């Protein structure tokens, strides 16, 4: 996960929809990787208005980078764009966790992927109007009859 993505993630779950940004890193030290990437200054400038500066600075500090100024400068010069590119697009969090400061829910990160899946029970409620009692016979999905799509023989190629 790039730090730019951290800046766009909030907890948004049943019972926690406000004050759930930013998520604080937990145990992110030592699980940070730098992956070089070409810079696209236009992209950096275009994405800047969508970011929360303070959350970005805090996140960068938490993973040991202090290259960005604490206050967002009015001008984005080349040097700032360079630094932003590095922080946003080259710092990766590969393992660790993030904690919601509102509900203290922990969102683990493994193989660079944050897991913010809903509780299965909340997922059932969200997608269903069925009574919650139905949960009693929830299974892990093994042994289900498959309908439709997969019984159709599929051509697994695209003609280039």
């Amino acid at each position, binding site marked *: 996960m790039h730090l730019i993505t951290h800046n766009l993630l*909030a907890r948004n779950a049943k019972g926690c929809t406000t004050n759930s940004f930013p998520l604080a890193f937990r145990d992110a030290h030592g699980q940070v990787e730098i992956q070089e990437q*070409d810079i696209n200054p236009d992209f950096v400038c275009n994405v800047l208005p969508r970011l929360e500066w303070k959350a970005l600075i805090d996140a960068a500090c938490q993973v040991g980078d202090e290259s960005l100024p604490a206050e967002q400068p009015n001008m984005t010069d080349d040097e700032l764009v360079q630094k932003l590119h590095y922080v946003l697009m080259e710092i990766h969090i590969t393992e660790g966790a993030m904690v919601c400061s509102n509900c203290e829910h922990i969102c683990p990160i493994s193989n660079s992927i944050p897991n913010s*899946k809903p509780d299965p029970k909340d997922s059932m409620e969200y997608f269903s109007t069925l009574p919650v009692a139905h949960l009693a016979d929830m299974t892990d999905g093994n042994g*289900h009859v498959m*309908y439709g*799509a997969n019984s159709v*023989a*599929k051509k697994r190629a*695209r003609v*280039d």
Partner: protein
Amino acid sequence: MIPTPDLSHLTKVDYDRVYEPAEDTFLFLDGLEQDAEHIRSLHPTVCLEIGSGSGCVSTFMGSILGPTGALYLCTDINQHAARCTVATGRQNKIPIDAINCSLTSSLLPRLRHSIDILLFNPPYVPTDGEEALDAQASGNISGAWAGGLSGMEITNKLLEEVNDLLSPKGLFYLVALKQNDIPAICAMMQDAFGLKSQTIIQRRAGREHLFILRFERQYVG
């Protein structure tokens, strides 16, 4: 011709757990390729794909816009799919961030009216509601197709969020099946959100009649 992403790093074991690109995926690629010039002309900054599976579609979007052209975000309810998505991006040198979550939940608060390209090839197969629910709760491969009533139970949840997600110039591409009742989908999006729609490509594949729909805001004048 924009080449189909290299998927040679994915194995049979991956496809036991993650949706293998099939006719729907390839029709999606063909539709996006057909729209490539239009997509580029909008200079998108943020692309989001829901249910990215193997990562084939977002990687393809990455070759339309270039590896550094935009931010490529993906979500999938299936953790193995999220992992394959990142791997496919890497294999094709497109940096993709994947999040293991349902629909757009954890991104919606911060990306309100910020998505320039939104993509969804949903679980569209009509199944009984319970099968769709179990698939959603467990995040396993049956979540790739089990769409519940009319195949629309998952898609409908996303349709409610599209208007909140799209930027003023944003485009939303959706894969749908004839049985999903495409006229009803389009009418709902128009009436509820003022989003106009168009079928950009369609194809019969075995028993499935597949459509790629494009939605966008309507500007008067």
